[in-house]
């Protein structure tokens, strides 16, 4: 659909959130939780952390929760009874106040969960999520969205995007039919915008640090470059934090939980950084050392996904680097691949 532009007053934001909630839409948004910023359900604008650049956690949990029930069953003498879990059992939700890299991060998950037999647990939640992103007025040294095809004002994946254009006004871009539908809920708060308004004036300037095609080509050629991966991963302790905060990481595990008669099977986030991830029962491990696991993380995003799913599995949000306890920095690592590897 053709994009529509409107203006919303900052002072009307609380009303907008109230309207969503009173009309029965749960609202997920960044929330301060001690030292970190989580994505949580909110009841009013007050609790929303609009002052931070990026939430610690990505927004992926709106459609891919950390823990999710995929089976439920009871066991008795006669056997097992499954109680069907409906993957589409979720509510239409507003995901509010996230960044463009969060919104566009869903395209990796869409590709992984949508490919082949589709995962309706993810897809139906995603389908029912309306994403209202805020463009970024500032960025930090970890951000490299513009090097991976995104940007601080990128609208891909967003249904609505808000840009702060003055002390008290937000420019509202209505980008999709879903966005249009959500905007009707607070239509009375919207006024017409001047179509000549130049959004770029209000967003951060994020320098391109590497050429993506070249990084993809060089990463693709680097499987056997053991030295490169070792050098990059020497510090890595395999804690998996990078994958847990990443908007595009989709790896998961299943675990059963049961008491004597009832049980559930849960799907949980997992990480290719964990040493047990690929360990066979025999003790054999195809990715035995951390450098091979680091290679997997980078190659999956920058070599395998581009080739198999036609999407680069990184949004340049820099979350993995901010979260890493030993200061691994993906932007530097990718730049190093770009500079050191010759193909």
């Amino acid at each position, binding site marked *: 659909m053709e994009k529509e532009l409107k203006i919303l007053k900052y002072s009307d934001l609380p009303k907008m959130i109230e309207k969503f909630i009173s009309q029965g839409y749960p609202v997920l948004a960044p929330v301060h939780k001690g030292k970190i910023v989580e994505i949580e359900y909110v009841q009013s604008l007050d609790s929303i952390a609009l002052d931070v650049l990026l939430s610690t956690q990505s927004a992926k949990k709106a459609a891919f929760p950390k823990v999710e029930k995929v*089976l439920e069953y009871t066991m008795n003498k006669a056997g097992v009874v499954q109680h069907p879990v409906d*993957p589409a059992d979720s509510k239409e939700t507003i995901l509010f106040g996230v960044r463009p890299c969060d919104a566009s991060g869903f395209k990796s998950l869409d590709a992984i969960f949508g490919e*082949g037999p589709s995962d309706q*647990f993810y897809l139906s939640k995603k389908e029912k999520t309306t994403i209202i992103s805020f463009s970024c007025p500032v960025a930090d040294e970890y951000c490299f969205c513009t090097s991976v095809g995104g940007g601080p004002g990128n609208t891909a994946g967003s249904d609505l995007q808000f840009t702060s254009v003055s002390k008290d006004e937000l420019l509202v871009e209505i980008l999709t039919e879903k966005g249009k539908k959500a905007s009707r809920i607070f239509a009375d708060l919207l006024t017409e915008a001047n179509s000549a308004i130049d959004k770029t004036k209000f967003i951060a300037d994020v320098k391109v640090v590497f050429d993506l095609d070249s990084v993809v080509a060089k990463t693709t050629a680097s499987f056997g470059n053991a030295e490169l991966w070792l050098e990059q991963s020497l510090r890595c302790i395999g804690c998996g934090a990078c994958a847990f905060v990443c908007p595009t990481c989709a790896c*998961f*595990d299943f675990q*059963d939980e049961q008491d004597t008669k009832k049980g559930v099977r849960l799907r949980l986030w997992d990480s290719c950084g964990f040493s047990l991830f*690929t360990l066979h029962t025999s003790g054999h491990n*195809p*990715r035995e050392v951390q450098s091979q696991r680091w290679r997997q993380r980078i190659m999956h995003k920058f070599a395998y996904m581009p080739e198999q799913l036609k999407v680069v599995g990184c949004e340049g949000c820099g979350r993995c680097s901010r979260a890493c306890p030993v200061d691994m920095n993906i932007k530097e690592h990718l730049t190093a691949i770009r500079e050191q590897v010759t193909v």
Partner: protein
Amino acid sequence: MEQQNIYQPYLMEIEKITEEAPMVKTFRLKFTNEEEGNKFSFRTGQFGEYSVFGEGEVTFCVASPHTRKGYIECTFRQAGRVTAELASLSEGDTIGFRGPYGNIFPIDDWKGKNLLFIAGGIALPPMRSVIWSCLDLRDQFKDISILYGARTVEDLVYKNELAEWKERPDVHLVTTVDPGGETPDWSGEVGFVPTILDKMIPVSENTIAIVCGPPVMIKFTFPVLEKYGFKDEQVYTTLENRMKCGLGKCGRCNVGKVFVCKDGPVFTRTQLKELPDEY
């Protein structure tokens, strides 16, 4: 509208348990819901996720041939947590099965050819499925030879079926056990699979070789096949990597860009050579 849950297994009743060897059992599984069973079909080479409710899932190939309907079989070695739980179950108990997943042995392309099956240890299950699938369509193929080796006589699985194949005039069966693994009345060969293969002087002309077994066996078997003129595209094998989803989503079974669960588990040696060292 209710959407399909791709992680929901079929319920299966354990109809029959056969003790194959120490720690190795075969389960014959029947669909609890007959209608689901009638609709179900698979092709030889495919695998599934078998679940013990409350414990979790494990990956086994379907060990029965696709030419036989109404049930599936799996043969498994008790290895860790879930397989231990599975081994403790009895006939009549219920387990889950998701599948079939993965690619197939392209037996339709093998029509009119000689088939040479080479299996070691517990790797006979995937082989047994393809062997019976071919034997059930016996007139489509020329000579069928089977070389099967285990550590000891006791470790040979499918002892009844081995006896049956031995009797059949249209199957050439060679069994072997590792040196020291023989019993006084053992009438088969003694020696490692690659050595015995060499003694068999296999004919590569118009032959497909299917090799399944532990990595060392495979490593030493390939050069013998090469010596007798087998080209890479005439040689098939299967890969195992740890799996969870079986559907190319959970992200752990890949060898480079190839997902063993959906692009495999069956590979030709040509394909294998293109894969990076990650299995």
